[in-house]
């Protein structure tokens, strides 16, 4: 078995970034809103462990606040996906083959045709760019993902005897879904949530990089990269640090997700048992 080491590494990296984001709520080394042109592009030092950017802002503080916005966007987007997708998936499975099922699945197919970036483009074209748009775009994209996972997991449970027993006992589809189906697909949802969380971090970075996400002066990893791009000749460090932060965070979440899947997947468990 190899998963524990990988999973522990993943969990540690994830916890580290979550902690950094939380700490940034109450304390950052330097104010990220204060511009100090005299201190621009300083190399790493005791006062600025990761140096300063082209406006003299402390890079470490920027990255900390950036972690907060990335995580917030990705988490809320997962929340939207779960809140809308899971009930839809449960409903589709409970009414399998009926028109509700058909409608939910076709609606999902439709959203799948719109990549998160395209949703963001549509929203931004009409409402203007903001972090909220990024959340909405990624969240809408998450809905069919969770609906599909929920429906798939629920369908396989509906065939089992204990569900039949519950039906014979007179429980309605709604109660069965809530009391018996949902707790048993929680594993699947946790794993999928981790995956969508990591995809959300990547998507948020991409959206804010092209200007469809967090707006200045809010620091975000994607925007830091966009600003650093113009200075890649003079100050490549500015482009390296936010990218490394994204990669480390996403890598951590992916390792955690893989580990959780191995750990929680009932098929794998049965095989090893």
């Amino acid at each position, binding site marked *: 078995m190899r998963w524990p080491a990988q999973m522990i590494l993943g969990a540690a990296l994830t916890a580290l970034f979550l902690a950094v984001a939380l700490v940034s709520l109450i304390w950052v080394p330097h104010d990220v809103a204060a511009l100090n042109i005299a201190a621009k592009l300083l190399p790493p030092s005791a006062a600025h462990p990761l140096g300063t950017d082209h406006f003299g802002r402390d890079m470490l503080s920027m990255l900390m606040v950036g972690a907060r916005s990335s995580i917030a966007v990705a988490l809320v987007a997962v929340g939207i996906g779960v809140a809308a997708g899971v009930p839809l998936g449960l409903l589709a499975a409970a009414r399998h083959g009926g028109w509700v099922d058909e409608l939910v699945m076709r609606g999902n197919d439709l959203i*799948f045709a719109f990549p998160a*970036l395209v949703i963001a483009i549509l929203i931004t074209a*009409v409402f203007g760019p903001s972090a909220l748009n990024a959340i909405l775009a990624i969240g809408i994209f998450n809905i069919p993902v969770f609906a599909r996972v929920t429906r798939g997991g629920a369908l396989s449970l509906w065939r089992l005897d204990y569900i039949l027993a519950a039906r014979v006992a007179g429980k309605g589809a709604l109660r069965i879904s809530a009391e018996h189906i949902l707790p048993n697909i929680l594993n699947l949802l946790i794993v999928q949530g981790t995956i969508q969380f990591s995809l959300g971090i990547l998507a948020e970075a991409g959206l804010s*990089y*092209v200007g469809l996400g967090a707006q200045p002066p809010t620091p975000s990893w994607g925007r830091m990269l966009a600003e650093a791009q113009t200075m*890649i000749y003079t100050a490549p460090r500015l482009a390296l640090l936010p990218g490394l932060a994204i*990669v480390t965070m996403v*890598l951590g979440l992916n390792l955690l997700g893989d580990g959780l899947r191995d750990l929680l997947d009932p098929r794998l468990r049965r095989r090893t048992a």
Partner: protein
Amino acid sequence: MLRYAAARLVSLGLSLVAASLVIFAVIEVIPGDPAAFMLGLNAEPDTVAALRDELGLNGSLPARYLDWVGGMLRGDFGLSYTYRVPVAELVAQRLWVSLPLAMLSLALSTLIAIPVGVIAAARRGQAADYGIMGATQLGIAVPNFWFAMLLVLVFAVKLRWFNAGGFPGWEAGVFSALKALTLPAVALALPQAAILARVMRSALIETLGQDYIRTARAKGLNARQTIRRHALRNALIPVLTIIGLQFSFLLAGAIIIENVFYLPGLGRLIFQGITQRDLVVVESVVMLLVFAVIVVTFLVDIAYGAADPRLRHRR
């Protein structure tokens, strides 16, 4: 097969209608008056009225929708408000950047991913497998636009082998055009290849566990022959599906990558459309992108149905 194809075709048509309705609703219904929206707050009322007239906004909503869809079917995407040229013309120009870029990176990622995935599967549990799996894990975590910046840093800034961006146009010769597309295509292809290599590996491992593989080995084929003659072809089916499904990611990725390299493709066109509030451009280009995704999904379904008869009858 014919019935399966016909059913998929109907669903293709319905998806396209539904997608166009969504786009129409967002762009033309939600802003209230698109003409006033495009011109901004300080527009004179008669300018707004003139634009309303030009955009055909005075008709009823159903009439406007049918007009828009009918126009697209004839290849008429409307007139760009800012460029004062037909959107179809703009799209045709930009397509010559975006499409080759997407194709190039698709080819590149496939050419990298398949051998790499096969090696990992054939050497399962050995050092090569661990190395490849570690590298792909990293590849999945790297945002392609950041990878693009790293490529610029190394190959344009330090080594000076390539330009950091820009596109000379195909008139400047195929070589210089391809050269300008090389770094963008690599940036787009490698993270994609990481995902594809993992799919290739697991598909091949699953195939290698089948009975007919044991038969092939039993009749005296060595591991290499078995993979080449029996396992690879069967394992390629799921890989081809993923390639098709990844098309939408590739398209979205291309839009972002075009920004890194200042390539005059569809992505730049869309972002210019957004900043200039040129809703005609945004509406048509988004529809085109969604159209491409839906059609590719349809083609993958058909190809999959052709390759695997069981799917045609499954619900």
